[in-house]
Every structure is written in structure tokens, then in C-alpha cells.
């Protein structure tokens, strides 16, 4: 029975560092932010006596939710998700299936070059694309002008599509690699049996391979939705260049703005908590849908 005890001791020791970090940098900060979100600071008197802290209960949440700037941020995210997910997941799936087909050549090379942008820091990707959007600096805009196309990447109408393009560039190759790895795990016998039975490449891809990697696709949608809610870096770069992208364009920018431009920690904490809650809720819903489809 000492063997069991030593196993328990080993498990505790191996898990302790991770859970210490988990507690200190995840659970405690969220708990502290939840606590802070219940208070508000008000300058007392004529502003000489500093500030006093008042308990407001859910006041900060109501303040954030009532603020059109915060709600508009969720509208922006909704539009972004609607535009981004089909293009991203569809594109990555298509490329992964093409790579997995027997028709593709130089598979290693293609995977490598498709993945490459993901190694580029998001802030740098956004800077590169902003310069590629800027007339006078960009060869893309110049080439389009010569071809008779006048698309202004930096007009307010095109703010969403310009951001979606940056995200797509950063993430499509990453998801291709994930899907391709899942496709590699599809038993070769099943694929071979299908082709012996006379199924073409397209038929095999759609009715054999695709259903077998459904779990990977659901996971990708889940992580993409969570990622979409966090949208921050790319619009921060476009802010100032595109008139539509203001300092509270996404919920995360709103929270940042509340903390550092308005100095309102209570509202910033409330906005962060709301954001984390919506993200967790949405991903829960997506997994539920995924599971139901898996069961049917």
C-alpha cells in the first residue's frame, strides 16, 4: 500500500507547479477583478481629498451594458465572426483536404509556407498589412489602381473586411496544419477501401474524410470564436488609420480604454469579467452543438 501512497505523493509533486501558477495567475486575478468590479471610485468634495471607494453592487456592469460604446463592440465582434469563420474554416478545410489528396505535390513545402504567417507576431502582421493598405506605400494598392480597381482598405465601410483579412492571413495556415494532422489520422485502410469501391478523390474527401475529422473542426470553431471575442491587436494598429476603428471598437479595446484612458478600474474589471463570461458561455454552447451533431 506504500506504493499507492508514493504514487499519490508523486502526482501531487508533479501537479503542484502548474496548479500554483493556475491559481496565482488565473483564479486569483479573476476573483480579484470580480471583487473590484463591485466598487466605484468617486472624488470627494472639490477633488482635494482624493477619492473614496463606494460599493455599487452590479452598478459597473449596468453602466457597461448601458453604454452604447460597449454594446457596439459586441456588434462589431458579431459581424467579424459572421464574416471570418466561414472563410477561415472553409478555406483551411479546403486546403487541408487538397493537401491530403493524392493529387497534391510538395506537401511539406506547402504546409511550411502556409503556416509561416502564424510565426509572425500579430502586432507585426497588423503593421505589415496596414502598410500594404496604405496608398503611396503599398504595392497592392498601386497594382489595383493600375488594374482599374479602386478599393479603399482604410475607409470606414471596409474596416471589418480589412481586419478579417489580417486574421485570416495569420491563422489559416495554422488551422490547415491542425486539419491535415487530423486527416493523417484517418485510417488509410478506410480511404483505400473507398477508392477500391470506385469513389473518386472528391467523394472520398467529402463523405469519408470530412465526417471523420469533425471533432477537429468543432474544436477549431470553438477556439476561433474565443479568439474573435479577444480581438484587440489588429484594430489597435488600424485605430488612427481607419476612421471607423475608434478606441472602443471591440469589447477588449473598451476595457483597455476604461482602465487606461478613463482610469475607471471598476468598469474595466466589469467589462473584462463580462467578456470572459460571454466567451466561456459561447464556447460551451459550441461544444454542446458539436456533441449533439456527433451523437446524431
Amino acid at each position, binding site marked *: 500500500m506504500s506504493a499507492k501512497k508514493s504514487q499519490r505523493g*508523486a502526482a501531487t509533486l*508533479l501537479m503542484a507547479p502548474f496548479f500554483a501558477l493556475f491559481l496565482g495567475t488565473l483564479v486569483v486575478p479573476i476573483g480579484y477583478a470580480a471583487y473590484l468590479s463591485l466598487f466605484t471610485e468617486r472624488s470627494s468634495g472639490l477633488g482635494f481629498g482624493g477619492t473614496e471607494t463606494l460599493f455599487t453592487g452590479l452598478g459597473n456592469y449596468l453602466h457597461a451594458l448601458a453604454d452604447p460604446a460597449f454594446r457596439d463592440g459586441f456588434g462589431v465582434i458579431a459581424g467579424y465572426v459572421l464574416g471570418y469563420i466561414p472563410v477561415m474554416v472553409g478555406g483551411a478545410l479546403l486546403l487541408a483536404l487538397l493537401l491530403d489528396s493524392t493529387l497534391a505535390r510538395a506537401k511539406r513545402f506547402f504546409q511550411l509556407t502556409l503556416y*509561416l504567417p502564424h510565426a509572425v*507576431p500579430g502586432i507585426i502582421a497588423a503593421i505589415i498589412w496596414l502598410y500594404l493598405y496604405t496608398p503611396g506605400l503599398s504595392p497592392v494598392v498601386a497594382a489595383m489602381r493600375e488594374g482599374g480597381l479602386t478599393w479603399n482598405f482604410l475607409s470606414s465601410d471596409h474596416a471589418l473586411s480589412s481586419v478579417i483579412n489580417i486574421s485570416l492571413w495569420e491563422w489559416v495556415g495554422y488551422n490547415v496544419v491542425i486539419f491535415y494532422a487530423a486527416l493523417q489520422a484517418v485510417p488509410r485502410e478506410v480511404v483505400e477501401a473507398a477508392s477500391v469501391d470506385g469513389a473518386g478523390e472528391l467523394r472520398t474527401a467529402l463523405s469519408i474524410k470530412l465526417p471523420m475529422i469533425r471533432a477537429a473542426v468543432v474544436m477549431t470553431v470553438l477556439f476561433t470564436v474565443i479568439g474573435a471575442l479577444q480581438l484587440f491587436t489588429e484594430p489597435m494598429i488600424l485605430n488612427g488609420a481607419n476612421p471607423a476603428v475608434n478606441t472602443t471598437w471591440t469589447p477588449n479595446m473598451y476595457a483597455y480604454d476604461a482602465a487606461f484612458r478613463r482610469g475607471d478600474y471598476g468598469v474595466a474589471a466589469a467589462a473584462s469579467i463580462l467578456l*470572459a463570461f460571454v466567451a466561456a458561455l459561447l464556447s460551451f454552447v459550441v461544444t454542446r452543438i458539436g456533441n449533439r451533431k456527433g451523437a446524431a
Partner: protein
Amino acid sequence: MTTTMTKPSVSTPAPVPSRARRRKPLWASKIAVNTALVLATAYTVLPLTWLLVASTKSLGDLSGNAFTLTEFHFFENLGELASADGGVYLRWYVNSILYAVGGAGLGAFCSVACGYAFDKFSFRGKEKLFGVVLLGVLVPTTALALPLYLLASELGVVNTFWAVFVPVLVNPFGVYLARIFSAGYVPGEVLEAARVDGAGELTTFWSISLKTLMPGFVTIFLFQFTGIWNNFFLPLVMLSDRELYPLSLGLYSWHTVVTAEPEYYPLTITGALLAVVPVVIAFLSLQRHWKAGMTSGAVK
């Protein structure tokens, strides 16, 4: 099987034309498939090519003829980069390496140890505890940045190295991956044999399991390394001293003044190019390792 057997018995020459008919579209689809892949590759590679070409240009030459090499100004740009703002760029570079290599190394080790323990040991409430880890995966990292800042400012550690270094160590998804890798790579029989030989659990982990788990460790390390190298929100809220900036925040600080002071254009572009190089090298050199880890992890 029965249908394919009956068809040739009806008319004997049937299989030959059907095979010939299939071969012709095969050629067309081969071209279509590879053209699509080439186009997608152009989309991912051309912006980086532009960055490379732009880094060889002076400010005056940047606008207009972006893809033509009229002058080679790369080394002048490098010199300006090294001396700009008192050589602060080099400092950012060292900081990024410290944050990313140290953070990913330590973080991946914690994740692997924890995931291994989840896989190999049984104790009461294990699956519930694992559920808590998965819940941690759901918490967005940027939604966490402000709470971390609020806590750090209460503790008085804002604007320190540790304020950025410690929070990036935790990687719940790494634990999830490590558990899968451990189930795939480390056979239970090996552990049993070690136990029979009287080896302690921690010794077995350190001298046997960790070695077998190496491809998994590299995979988790690589993803975490890129994550930290790319991290922007956390340093943005935590740091005000530019001596502590990582490259991402430093380049952002240059970028924000670019419209007022255009001489920062070549600095930002060359600086961005050099910031991309180590991640690309890390990815290319560890690629085989990483690939092997990924596919064998998926097969299991």
C-alpha cells in the same frame, strides 16, 4: 464488391475505357489542386516578401516602387536600428528572448509534468480537476490581462520583468496536450516494469518518461514560445519602462509615432523583419521534431 464483379462479366472490354476516362480528368484535377495551393501560398508569403524588400529601402525610396530594387539600403537601416533611441532595440530583442525562451521552457515543463500525472496516476476527483483545467482553456488570455494588471498593481509589481514573465507560464491547453501525448507515448508496461525494479515514481518520470515525452514537450514548447513572442496585450498593460519592453511592444511604440515622424518607417520595417527571423528559424529547425510529435500524437 458484387457490383464490380458483375459488370465486367456483362461486357469484357468495359474496364479499359473506364480507366482511360478516369485518367484524363486526373491530369486536370492535379493542375487545379496544385494551382490552388500555389495561390494560397502566394497569399501567405508575399506580404513577408514585401517586408524583406522594404527593409532594403531608405525612407525616400519606400513609397511608390515597392517591389523594385533600385538601391540597397539594408545595412544603413541596420545601423540606424542599432543606434536609434540610444540602442533600445537591442534591449527589446534580449527581453523578448528572455520572456519567450525562459517562459516557454519553464511553462512547458510544468504542463508536461501535470499532464503526465493526470494520465498515469489515479486519485479521487481526478476528472473533476481535469475539468477545471479545461475550464481554464476557455478563459480568453486577453480578458485576463486587465485582471492581472489590477492584481499586480495592488501587489506593487506592475512595470517589472516578473509581471510579464510569470503570467505567461500557465498553459492549460498544454496540460491537455501533455495528457494525450503521455497516453500515446509512455506505455503503462514500462512504468510497471520500473515499479517492479523498485524505481521511485519521480525517478521514473525524470529518467524514462520525460525522454519519451520529448516530442510532446517540443510541441508544447513551440506553441507557447510563439504565443509569448507574439504577446502584446499583457506587456502593453503591465509595462511603462521601455527598457523592459519586448519587441512587440517596442515596435508598437515606434509605430504610433510614424505619422508624425516618418523616419520611424524604415526603423519599424527593419525592426519587424528582424523580430520575425528567430521565430521562423525556431519553427524551421524544430519542424521535423514538431511534425513527428503532432502526427504520432494524432494517430493514437
